[in-house]
């Protein structure tokens, strides 16, 4: 390791090549961390991903819809997960939406009832008991996500959280049987957590697709929306 990672030790700064060499090594090091975390996360979570995919396939087969949500970068990862389900490059499209996507709805709720309710109010408005709610977070603690997951659980939805660090409140909710599944990525880095969450989300999608093929799932064409 050179002085470039400790910039103030070396006042002489004219060697661009040395910086580029250090940046490249840093990129490979971080990618290696990401690869290791993805591998260990998949290994640890595989049994619960399988169980969750079976439950999701049942819901989709019953006519259920998937709603995803998160804050900041995680809101975009939640949107990517929703479009993976709804517009997969291969496989069967399934109905899925991101609840952060509509700025009129999000700002109306944020302004009128408060930011903590931006997703739970949408769960109340949109969801049926056979639906699925997925919240993506790195801390597992965000109030708006936890509130929406609890609301969804009360309404009979299948509830799934993605978290990082030690799982935060989402991990506690699973312990208390107030959340059906929580996929916790055991890392302290928000970036590495999000990269592994994408990998786990992709695995969850792939297994859901497999399960629907295996059971030759036939989805109802009429509304199954009795409460």
């Amino acid at each position: 390791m050179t002085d470039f990672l400790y910039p103030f030790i070396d006042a002489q700064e004219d060697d661009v090549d040395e910086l580029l060499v250090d940046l490249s090594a840093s990129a490979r090091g971080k990618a290696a961390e990401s690869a290791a975390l993805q591998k260990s996360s998949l290994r640890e979570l595989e049994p619960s991903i399988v169980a969750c995919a079976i439950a999701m396939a049942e819901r989709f087969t019953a006519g259920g819809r998937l709603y995803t949500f998160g804050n900041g970068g995680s809101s975009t990862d939640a949107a990517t997960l929703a479009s993976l389900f709804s517009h997969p490059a291969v496989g069967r499209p399934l109905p899925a939406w991101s609840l952060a996507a509509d700025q009129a709805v999000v700002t109306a709720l944020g302004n009128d009832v408060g930011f903590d309710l931006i997703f739970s109010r949408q769960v109340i408005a949109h969801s049926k008991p056979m639906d699925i709610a997925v919240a993506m977070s790195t801390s597992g603690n965000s109030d708006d996500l936890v509130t929406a997951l609890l609301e969804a659980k009360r309404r009979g939805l299948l509830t799934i959280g993605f978290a990082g660090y030690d799982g935060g409140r989402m991990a506690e909710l699973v312990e208390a049987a107030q959340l059906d599944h929580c996929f916790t990525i055991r890392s302290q880095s928000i970036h590495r957590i999000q990269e592994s969450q994408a990998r786990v989300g992709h695995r969850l999608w792939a297994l859901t697709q497999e399960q629907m093929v295996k059971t030759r799932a036939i989805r109802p064409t009429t509304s199954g929306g009795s409460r």
Partner: protein
Amino acid sequence: MTAQIAPTAADLMSEELSTDLSAAALALARRFHSGATLWVLSPEWEPHAHHVAVEFVHPVIMGKRALPAFALTGADPVSEARLATRPGDVILAVAGAEDAGIREVVRRAPAWGAETIWIGFGHRPEPGAANHVLWVDSADPMVPATGRFVLMYHLLWELTHVCFEHPGLLVASTDCTDEVCITCSDEGRLGEVVLAPTEAFAPAIVRTATGEEDVDVTVIGHVSPGDLVLVHAGAALVLLEEVAR
């Protein structure tokens, strides 16, 4: 079973990709240092454009500076990017090599004075298509949803901020030998016609990397707004062919 699903470190970041990424990060840091705005486009995978923008605007690490970055998600990437960019800005695209709108944006970017970074997967764009090509060498159609792009722009952000810790390197060295005399050399600068001449032999208004200028177009004859031309010593010498949109 999961061993096949989880990528190896070498899968995620080859030596070549790490080199490309470093060069892109330094270029981006230098542009930000000079006042650039980063414009992000991902017509097919819009959430990635938003993720890049929020990464720079609201850093996950406390104390890192907020930088100007916007996602452009309108229906027409070319007209949006054209309107948005100022000379010195950076355009980052997350898109496949065959994305017609993005191909047109990176082709025109030199006339707008913008540097380009292109993140994608599958077969690569032709050499020189963008200033920086950060490519996932996998044909798996699921790549955009596996976190590979997320890793790429996370690392771009992280490395860009490492560059800020080396202020002495944020200004490109001045003894650069690339500079050529614009009038005496054969250099042709890319320009985009803004306004056609209003009368015979009058100049057209053409946008180039340095701004808008009057350009003589009598050699070419008829030009229309949006045409790409090569400008040399105040005259447009070549009309570049239209690329299928």
